[in-house]
């Protein structure tokens, strides 16, 4: 077994990766530098090319153009088995005819490690993933969460340079998912193994990642810490994808340093790069009040109590917005209310390019 501690200088670089299936350009010019020990989450909606990108790193998919480097070494065309990378598949891909112990020990057995050493390593890893009592079971005799642990153990056992995980929690029920998420984070921290984690669930991305790379239609939208992508979304897509409920948008235009829309007329610091513009604000940054007292007025569509808080949905022209209010708040449907938020919590986006403008709301 190699130790990753001595290879700290290693860094995984994806440079201008491109991949097409037939005429469909699935991954477009993807470049990411992944630091040693980093937990990088590749986030994006279904079909945006995350799995394809991950499979290129694993060596399961050829690269059309661009390169993949590991510690300065070009591994773009290396066979998977020479990459020192382990992968956890969405379906776990456990070998159904092998026991838990044989599944976990397989990478070492293939590497020609002595039987006794394999057994010792299997026991050690099984203890780490809490599967020590199940070593003689077959995958079909395990629950989803247990299979997940075996897949994880099999990836961990040879102490690879990097883990690749493709939506590893998506087959688990909600409760188990939350539990496994915490365990994954804990384990990755203790092992210090570089990890690329693919998911379409922004909560997973926020909670697990050191940095999040958000993709849409094969294009990297933004790369940053969860805080950064949440607080400083670079594009309309990122703003709308992060957060639950996601950011609210008011579609309007900027003219004469004013943002205008139905019922809305707010001063901004400068004109934008194009007239068509979108004003965004987060549900938790805003509140509803008595009509006429906020930034603009809107009509209540519904008020939903979740127990923890109340979600008020309001309608303004063609836009629907959700505002998070305290648990004891309630608003009558069809009533008119005001919406307000601190002006520094409002984001302005260029409707045409989708990029965030460097201008902001003024006044208060």
């Amino acid at each position, binding site marked *: 077994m190699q130790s990753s501690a001595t290879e700290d200088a290693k860094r995984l670089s994806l440079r201008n990766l491109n991949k097409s299936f037939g005429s469909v350009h699935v991954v477009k010019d993807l470049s990411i530098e992944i630091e040693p020990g980093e937990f990088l989450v590749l986030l994006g909606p279904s079909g945006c090319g995350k799995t394809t990108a991950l499979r290129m790193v694993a060596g399961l998919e050829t690269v059309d153009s661009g390169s993949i480097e590991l510690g300065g070494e070009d591994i773009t065309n290396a066979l998977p088995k020479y990459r020192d990378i382990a992968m956890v598949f969405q*379906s776990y*891909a456990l*070998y159904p005819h092998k026991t838990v112990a044989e599944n976990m020990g397989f*990478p070492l057995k293939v590497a020609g490690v002595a039987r006794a050493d394999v057994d010792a390593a299997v026991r050690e890893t099984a203890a780490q993933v809490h599967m020590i009592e199940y070593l003689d079971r077959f995958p079909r005799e395990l629950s989803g969460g247990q299979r997940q642990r075996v897949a994880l153990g099999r990836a961990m056992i040879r102490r690879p340079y990097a883990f690749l995980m493709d939506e590893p929690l998506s087959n688990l029920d909600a409760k188990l998912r939350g539990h496994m998420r915490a365990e994954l984070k804990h384990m990755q921290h203790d092992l210090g193994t570089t990890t690329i984690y693919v998911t379409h669930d922004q909560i997973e991305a926020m909670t697990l990642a050191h940095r999040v790379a958000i993709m849409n239609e094969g294009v990297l939208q933004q790369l940053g810490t969860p805080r950064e992508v949440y607080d400083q979304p670079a594009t309309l897509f990122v703003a709308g994808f992060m957060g639950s409920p996601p950011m609210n948008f008011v579609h309007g235009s900027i003219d004469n340093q004013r943002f205008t829309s139905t019922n809305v007329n707010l001063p901004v610091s400068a004109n934008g790069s194009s007239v068509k513009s979108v004003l965004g604000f987060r549900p938790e940054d805003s509140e509803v009040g008595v009509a006429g007292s906020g930034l603009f007025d809107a009509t209540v569509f519904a008020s939903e109590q979740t127990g923890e808080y109340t979600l008020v949905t309001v309608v303004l022209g063609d836009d629907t917005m959700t505002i998070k209010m305290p648990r004891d708040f309630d608003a009558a449907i069809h009533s008119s209310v005001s919406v307000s938020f601190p002006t520094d919590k409002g984001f302005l986006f260029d409707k045409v390019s989708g990029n965030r403008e460097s201008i902001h709301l003024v006044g208060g």
Partner: protein
Amino acid sequence: MAYIRKRTLLNRIFEAPAIGKMAPGTALFVYACLLFWTLVVAFPLYWILITSLKTAQDVNGGPFFIPWVDFTPSLHAWKELFVFDYEDTLRSYTNSIVIALLSTLLCISVGSMAAYALARITYKPKFGNILLFVIAMIAGMYTTWKFGVDWKLTIAAAVAVWFLLVRSIGRFFKKSVGNGDILFWMISQRILPPIVTVVPIYMMFQNLKLLDTHIALILTYTVVNLPIVVWLMYDFMNSIPIELEESAQLDGASRLRTFWEIVLPLAKPGLAATTLLVLILAWNEYILAVFLSTSNAQTIPILVSAMNAGERGILWWSMCVVIIIMIIPVVFMAILLQRFISKGVLLGAVKG
């Protein structure tokens, strides 16, 4: 209580007493049908068994059904085949075993590899290139026939010419065939019964001086059964999730190791079922054997029909003896292979 309707006697007989149970009336009917069918199936076997123990008078004077009651069993037919005609019987028997086993082995190994390749690799041979190959071969045949050139030479030349053509003009062809076409082409070899090709096959082996040899029958059976193996195994290979192989590759296993340690064990049920089928086909094959073997390579089905040839008329008793010894190994193989023909080997692989 009032919500559960009272059941009449008829209900009680013909309705299931609980979910997952069978109604008494239905059960009676089903088991009666099954019993009847069992008798229909088992009776010929019983008839063969007792006929092998009958003398000529018992057979011709019959029908007699119950040994020791209707007639006195005699081992004369068994004695004739195993003592007097011992060599003939044994030769046919070993021939059948050798031919069936070897052709099955060959067929299964070649066929399942082909099936695996078709399931995992995307082939795109250009249609034009295939056409060129056919043209080159026809041209080669023509020169051999017209100018008497040595056929080995023409084949070599034709292949060389074809190769050059493919390298030079092959890239201009657009249309290509896919795996589905290849698969269909293979199974299309079985659309006509193999017997229609028996004359060319006969002449080929005659030219090669291989008539009445094991190798002729082994090769013929292998080729004839290959499409079945490819067709069946293709489905089995396809049902193995490719992620298992990808995972093994990431775990460091070589292609060969992945095949041996992951694919093959998972394909075992399919292999067992296909093996059994091909083995039985080869074991029972009669028509090709009639043409390709006379005495040395004579198989058991030929021996069965030989009991119908003598001037003594049909030797029912001897025929039944041969049929019995012919059935035994098949039953034995079925029991042996049945262990592997179990469902659910893939459970737990990829389902959550």
